[in-house]
């Protein structure tokens, strides 16, 4: 436990340090990609617990990310003024869940507030994960991979084919997500891509990531975490010891889906829009790749590799070879270091060589 505290302090120190360095060197544009990388890493650490600790692969997490992002985006942008008189709208309005305003052309606009939309999106994602998880998690190996891949593809198709979600254009002009209104001269604190809010958004993203990381670290050190590792080791043995494997797997699946949905909601408000490519199979594969690179059962590895590789990819370092780079990483890691790149120690490589020689 103590080592976690030290590591988290180092992480916080780094987060603040990087912000200060960009401030002094006038390279604050890096903060934009670091913010986005933090949100993507949220998906990755959630998936890391599912894959590494519970041992269940999911090729559909981009689907949950998209469910969060798309629902939040559509609820906060689609005008409900036409449904003004219906009971549901009156009820929602009475609960303070709607905001009215004016659009660019001065028309009346009535949309759901981001907080309500965010909570709705996350709850729906959790519900879908729950309903999907019950049958899907009974499957193993290839079948589980294909079933989750199929789920991801259905979400992608649904986003691409429904007018409500903007078809191939996606949804744009998503408003900022005001976390706290202005109180006593401090704030307002908003998730938005506005250049003026770059620094605070950087801290929102990293703050969220660190909080979620602490949550997961505590989870895997708890009774639940030990149960999960026992499932990974041998499901039959875990079952024989009285672990309710089906329930634990389902919980972790829902938890990781919620992480993905939260990331989707925040990133969509930050980017001001979402497109169908966020739901694509390649995205899901990329999340799996990053978890694999970090080491399956290694949250810190997943975090470090997730942030750094996503950052490089977002900076456009890999150019048109972006997907190819992730594919190669996936293969090379799985061939030579299935425990993740951080498990490779130079000493080990020499040791192995000696063993072969002798």
């Amino acid at each position, binding site marked *: 436990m103590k080592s976690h505290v030290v590591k988290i302090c180092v992480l916080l120190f780094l987060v603040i340090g990087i912000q200060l360095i960009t401030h002094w060197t006038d390279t604050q544009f890096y903060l934009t990609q670091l913010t986005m990388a933090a949100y993507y890493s949220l998906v990755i650490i959630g998936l890391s617990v599912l*894959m590494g600790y519970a*041992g269940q*692969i999911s*090729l559909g997490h981009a689907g949950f990310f998209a469910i969060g992002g798309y629902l939040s985006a559509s609820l906060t942008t689609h005008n409900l003024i036409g449904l003004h008189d219906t009971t549901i709208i009156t009820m929602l309005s009475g609960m303070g869940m709607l905001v009215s305003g004016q659009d660019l052309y001065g028309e009346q606009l009535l949309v759901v507030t981001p907080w309500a939309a965010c909570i709705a999106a996350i709850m729906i994602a959790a519900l879908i994960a729950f309903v999907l998880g019950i*049958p*899907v998690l*009974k*499957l*193993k*190996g*290839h*079948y589980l*991979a*294909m*079933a989750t*891949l*199929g*789920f991801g*593809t*259905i979400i992608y*198709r*649904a986003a*691409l*084919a429904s007018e409500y979600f903007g078809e191939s254009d996606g949804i744009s002009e998503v408003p900022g997500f005001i976390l706290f209104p202005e109180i006593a001269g401090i704030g307002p604190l908003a998730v938005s891509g506005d250049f003026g809010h770059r620094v605070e958004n950087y801290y929102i993203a990293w703050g969220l990531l660190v909080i979620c990381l602490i949550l997961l670290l505590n989870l895997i050190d708890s009774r639940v975490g030990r149960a999960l590792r026992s499932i990974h080791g041998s499901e039959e043995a875990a079952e024989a010891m009285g672990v309710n494997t089906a329930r634990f797997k389902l919980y972790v699946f829902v938890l990781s889906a919620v992480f993905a949905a939260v990331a989707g909601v925040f990133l969509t408000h930050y980017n001001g829009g979402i497109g169908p490519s966020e739901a694509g*199979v*390649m995205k899901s*594969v990329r999340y*799996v*790749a990053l978890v*694999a690179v970090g080491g399956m059962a290694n949250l810190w590895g997943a975090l470090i590799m997730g942030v750094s590789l996503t950052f490089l990819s977002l900076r456009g370092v890999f150019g*048109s*070879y972006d*997907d*190819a780079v*992730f*594919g*190669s*990483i*996936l*293969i090379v890691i*799985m*061939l030579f270091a*299935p425990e993740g790149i951080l498990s490779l120690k130079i000493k080990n490589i020499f040791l192995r060589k000696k063993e072969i020689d002798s």
Partner: protein
Amino acid sequence: MTFDLFFQLLFAGITYGIIYAIVAIGFNIIYNTTGIINFAQGEFVMLGGMISISLLHVVPLPVAIFGAVLITMIVGALIEMVFIRWLDNPSVLRLIIITIGLSILIREVALHIWGESIRSLPYFYGNEITAVQFGSVRFSPQILWVIGVCGVVVAGLSLFFGYTSLGREMRACSANRRAAILCGINTRNMVTFSFMLSAGIGALAGCVMSPITYTQYDIGTGLAIKGFTVAVLGGLGNSMAAVAAGIILGILEAFSITIVPLAFQDAIAITLLLIMLFLRPHGLFGSKEAAGLKEF
């Protein structure tokens, strides 16, 4: 629905269904000898189509197709030798991720070689508007080619697995790997052969379907999902049942456009796959007891 429309949809469904079935047979061959689902199977189909289109610039059609099948077989064998052969007892998760990585790599290589443009082979007989009249129903002769090729592949495979020593050795390898080793069969070579065979069959499917469905660098994933659906529908490992299952899926898809929008057509296969996995993972024609012995 008019009588003619019914038959048009039926023929379209059968054609697509048989294409899916050939992809599914590719899955089955590798699954049978190794227990691996090769997620890069769809990419073999794409490679077959693309290579034959490129070869067509220098050689006549039959030679181009033969060359494409041969080259894809070599690619399949190389992939197995470089990426899979030397792994010691790899876990299923590891193999899934490796084959997914391979499918991405092949797709990206294809993108950089052939670009994003949509290509196709010419029709094997006649052209786009040539039609065979059958009563009042007209259909393209290419459909007959697809059905013929599928028939030859299935018949050839049953002969190969039933009567040649290599085919028997491969079957032994799938029935019980350790026993096969004890009988002096080089099981590692059998795995390489199975990758070659399934790459070749995939490439052949890519060639015969190209005039109808066109070929693009990213057709692999969609085909792989549908091929896998068909393989599961028929019962994983059973090639004859895959043909029947393929035709069922093809017909379902073809008739679905009269009910749901075209954009959701792909969702049908996936929904069917999910339902099958939940309710009957051993397939429509498979036996539950036999499936219980396998590892899913």
